[in-house]
């Protein structure tokens, strides 16, 4: 049966390998120069001086945006794998009618389904796990340089640790499940991409922030690499809007364009210092809700865990539907 799966789905497997291969090549080609550049940055002495801080900031300004764009593009990988490797698995059997052959052989339809799913599920999980190691290597200089977007930042989080493998497996399981429900290849592919994207969006935008109760602090100094979920100004327990902020800042002629962005005016005294500190000294509180970078692995296991459970449920549901499905 392993030969069967290989022979029927070798294109899908090749596609998965090619996709990861191309992405890996890209990461290597852009990552090696970045690592070399960081070696120079890290060797700057004396560490912590203004000069070296500026060297670090120059490094981040040069490389961080590119890394961000790369990670944005790499988000598509699990969805593509789910759609191209998972969805056609069962959908094509219905579309071409070959299930009338496959399900009447002595092997039996449930065993046949499991025997087809398992090698591919294991294969995509391993491939994506290996790729996420490369992602962690790739992004290390940016993390070490202390970029504001730490390891919990959404587009980085789901490409590193165990999350990428979990998301890829989930996409595959969604694809296979869509295949048995929809029974046509192209619609199943679209359904897979749409549902995976919706799940990923809801997780990144809402769910992940609450795996553990976020830390809320009024200290304006947030630990490096923390994932800031919310940051706002409060006066006397009530949210303070831009008007209130500007009123408070009026005496020193600083204008708040946004609650985090301040513009000094012509009448700003030279020694006004940090507008944030000024506001705090004048009765406003800045409350920041964040998740510290130290929770990275805890969150990885939580997310990996429920995605794995979801994948197993979907695959079990698929096999159950195979048993029940009539011609």
């Amino acid at each position: 049966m392993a030969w069967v799966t290989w022979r029927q789905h070798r294109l899908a497997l090749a596609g998965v390998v090619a996709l990861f291969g191309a992405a890996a090549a890209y990461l290597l080609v852009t990552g090696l120069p970045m690592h070399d550049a960081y070696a120079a940055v890290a060797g700057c002495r004396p560490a912590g001086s203004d000069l070296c801080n500026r060297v670090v900031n120059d490094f981040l300004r040069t490389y961080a945006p590119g890394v961000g764009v790369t990670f944005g593009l790499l988000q598509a990988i699990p969805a593509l794998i789910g759609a191209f490797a998972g969805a056609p698995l069962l959908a094509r059997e219905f579309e071409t009618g070959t299930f009338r052959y496959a399900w009447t052989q002595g092997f039996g339809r449930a065993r046949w389904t499991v025997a087809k799913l398992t090698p591919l599920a294991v294969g995509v999980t391993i491939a994506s796990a290996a790729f996420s190691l490369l992602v962690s290597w790739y992004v290390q200089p940016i993390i070490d340089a202390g970029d504001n977007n730490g390891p919990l930042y959404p587009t980085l989080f789901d490409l590193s640790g165990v999350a990428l493998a979990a998301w890829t497996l989930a996409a595959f399981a969604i694809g296979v499940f869509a295949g048995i429900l929809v029974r046509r290849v192209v619609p199943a592919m679209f359904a897979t991409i749409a549902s995976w994207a919706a799940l990923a969006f809801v997780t990144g935008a809402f769910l992940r922030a609450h795996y553990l109760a976020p830390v809320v602090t009024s200290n304006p100094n947030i630990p490096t690499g923390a994932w800031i979920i919310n940051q706002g100004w409060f006066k006397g327990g009530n949210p303070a809007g831009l008007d209130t902020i500007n009123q408070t800042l009026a005496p020193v002629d600083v204008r708040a364009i946004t609650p985090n962005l301040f513009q000094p005016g012509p009448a700003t005294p030279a020694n006004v210092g940090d507008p944030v500190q000024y506001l705090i000294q004048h009765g406003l509180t800045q409350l920041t809700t964040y998740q510290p970078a130290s929770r990275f692995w805890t969150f990885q296991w939580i997310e990996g865990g429920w995605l794995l459970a979801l994948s197993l449920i979907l695959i079990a549901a698929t096999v159950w539907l195979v048993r029940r499905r009539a011609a």
Partner: protein
Amino acid sequence: MNAVETNGLGKRYGNSWALRECTLAIPAGHVAALVGPNGAGKTTLLNLVVGLAAPSAGIVTVLDGQTAGSAAALDGIAFVAQDAPLYKNLTASEMLHLTRNLNRHFDEGYAKARLRDLGIPLDRKAGRLSGGQQSQLALSLALARRPRLLVLDEPMAMLDPLARHDFMATVMAAIADDGLSVVLSSHVLTELERVADYLVLISHGSVQVAGVVDDLLARHRVLTGPAIEADTYAERLNLVHAQRGEAQAHMLVRIDARTGPVAPGWETHPVSLEELTLAYLREPDAAWLPGPGRAPRLEPTEVAN
């Protein structure tokens, strides 16, 4: 021993019944032909027999009491669906390999010999074979499984007349050698007449005729005579269907206790399977079903200890 037994079998898709109240006992070791117009329910019945569909009502058992679709049933039944489904991007020899991997018994030597005799190249992708060759490949794979029951849905649709003849010859040889039972659906009545010994006629989701062919043909006759006398004569007979021309009428009748000698001016002919089938199809209310006194004596099914 019955190859297929159904009792009150029915299948509903949504709100419409594709098959209703189907009660059959198809004996083993014979060729049973499933005949009927398009959309009558033949494919539905075959799907129920091979376990691709689950009954909405009634039961279906195969190979002497096995549940349709069970592991034992799958082992013993080889099925070729309409359009002979194959994996188009696998070569013929890969299809052999696949079928061997998916079944306990597979006579690869037999399959290869048969394909060689038919001139089907082993290294060509199944999608690149002609329609007839694809049919032959699918049939060869089914036969090579050495099944106890071979179920075929319109197997001869893609075959040329010579190929049809050869195919039926192969099937007959397998029946004689291995005790194979065959259930096949077809439109090609003339071919079936020579080989089918059990007939099931399905129309509009109901079984209209079910019986041993010899029995059927022996118990029906065509009476030909003057059209004006047709109606009065028909009252004394068990009429299935009458075809009236201007001068002559042909009446297909069942022979029973009431049938006396042929009236003067009338001639009697034996009926062909095709004529019989067409007559019943034209009379949806007429039926010939196994019942007390009319069914062939089937051997009692063995009860497993």
